[in-house]
């Protein structure tokens, strides 16, 4: 009996000690992660004043308004299209670069740095560089097009081209990350596996297709999910390049939240949009963790 009490006392003391070490993190998480999550859910159920105070309980009113609003449905459409433009392109461009960077030769470190260099470039810097290249009059892209007798394109002002232009900027900026992750995965493929396939008489392509791709498929999947999450949360490039325009062609979900909250001062409606974003992100993060788990256990 007294032994149990002593054990209980010891574990209580351990708990108090541990909490002292955890307190700084817990405080920050409580104030800036958990409380705002609850507050956001609450805001989404209310009409709010332009100052952000609750004015009237609206129930599902904000959500109903979203479903009726062409702007919100449009922003979902833009976000999906944005993902379609960027995620496969990021993989298709990232994998060959990672394969090249995985070669064993003198000076390979320089190539690895070069191929993954855009990690060092912020989204704002990338957007500014591409905005300059997209310049309709003196930009380098229209000049290169003119060499091929192509038309002069209003990359950021033409509703057909604005989203592909924003997507190109995004793909370039995230390429470095894709290369680093895929390269790390390629380096984890055992030499013996590749050698064995070669001895069996498989050609380069067969080895790539039937040995390397399956071996790195979790990394490919991981890159795809991270890119999708990146699209769901993209803001800076849109704010700099197009401000959601022309005519909503690049009005992806976070930009739409930003507009509703900080320009239209409809905090309740924007909070409801944020809840929808939360559900989407949660779905993809869960997928990512699930695959990560499988990878760790069977990899």
């Amino acid at each position, binding site marked *: 009996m007294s032994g149990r009490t002593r054990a209980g006392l010891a574990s209580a003391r351990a708990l108090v000690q541990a909490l002292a070490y955890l307190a700084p993190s817990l405080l920050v998480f409580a104030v800036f992660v958990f409380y*705002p*999550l609850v507050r956001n859910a609450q805001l989404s159920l209310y009409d709010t004043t332009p100052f952000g105070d609750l004015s009237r309980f609206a129930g599902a009113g904000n959500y109903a308004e979203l479903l009726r609003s062409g702007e919100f449905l449009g922003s979902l459409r833009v976000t999906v299209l944005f993902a379609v433009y960027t995620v496969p392109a990021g993989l298709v461009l990232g994998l060959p670069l990672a394969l090249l960077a995985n070669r064993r030769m003198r000076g390979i470190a320089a190539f690895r740095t070069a191929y993954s260099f855009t990690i*060092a470039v912020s989204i704002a810097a990338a957007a*500014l560089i591409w905005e300059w290249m997209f310049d309709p009059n003196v930009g380098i892209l229209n000049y290169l097009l003119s060499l091929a007798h192509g038309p002069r394109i209003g990359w950021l002002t033409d509703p057909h081209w604005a989203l592909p232009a924003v997507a190109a900027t995004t793909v370039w900026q995230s390429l470095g990350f894709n290369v680093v*992750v895929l390269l*790390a*995965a390629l380096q984890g493929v055992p030499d013996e596996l590749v050698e064995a396939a070669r001895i069996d008489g498989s050609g380069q392509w067969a080895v790539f297709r039937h040995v390397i791709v399956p071996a790195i498929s979790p990394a490919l999947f991981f890159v795809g999910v*991270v890119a999708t999450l990146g699209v769901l949360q993209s803001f800076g490039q849109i704010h700099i390049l197009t401000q959601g325009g022309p005519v909503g062609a690049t009005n992806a979900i976070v930009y739409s939240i930003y507009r509703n909250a900080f320009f239209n001062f409809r905090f309740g409606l924007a909070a409801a949009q*944020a809840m929808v974003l939360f559900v989407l*992100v949660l779905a993809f993060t869960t997928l990512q963790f699930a695959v990560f788990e499988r990878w760790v256990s069977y990899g």
Partner: protein
Amino acid sequence: MMPASATSAYEVAAAGRRPARARALRRAAPGAGLGLLMVLVALIVLFPLLFALSTSLKGGAEVNLYPPTLWPRSLDLGNYAAALQQAPLARFLLNSLIQSGAITLGQLITASLAAFAFSFIEFPGRRWLFFLFLSTLMIPAEVTLIPNYLTVRSFGWLDTYPGLIAPYLATAFGTFLLRQFFLTIPRELADAARIDGASRRRFLWTIVVPLSRPALATLAIYAFLSSWNQYLWPLLVINSTEMRTVQIGLALLQSQEILSWSLVMAGVILIILPTVVLFVFGYRHVVRGLTAGAVKG
């Protein structure tokens, strides 16, 4: 018995690998064609950056020439001086340095403390609290954006450093990263320290932290890179020109009436310089930080 067989298995594997590696090296003895292709690919990937660098060195009206020139006719550093003074990028750089420095230092401290509790103290509810930490990774910043803006405003922190810094002072990712490293530190060290009468706190700061320098460096570089590159949060909490961080300072420079692309490109080169230096010299750490969630280990 066990260790012996493990060793021999390792030796077999290593012996098997060595010739394989030599063969691979011989095969890779670069075909000049492939080497050329690799250089060409590097140039294409880096082209936007090289073109930005070239643009930043163009003087006067050369930037508006059509067709655009690939090489500047003369090297003009005037754009850099102008960007630093007029924008004023020098002030933005200082703001970002304070913001990112404080976030990095803060995350190193809070994550070390938390990771220590999760790896060296046996306490009831440990699993549950660890899960609570990890759950913050599932909550995107965009969802907490509006309430956090309202909170920071109610603290009177709009347009201040605390407003920029406070929400980022804790990190679940960093805690996880450090915990994984702390778990590799032999438990015997903790027992020995306790017998020596060292307090837990002293054990953390004099033994665990110095032993964990590689993991701390990874976290520091990761934290600095991501806070230096922040965009949306600084855009919301900062109103005045003097308090802008580099990213939004530069972006808003571009939206001004009179726009000189050579000036903006000089600004771009200046603001990516610190991250480029970190990236090139801390490549190993950057890679480890980015792949921590992706690659088992």
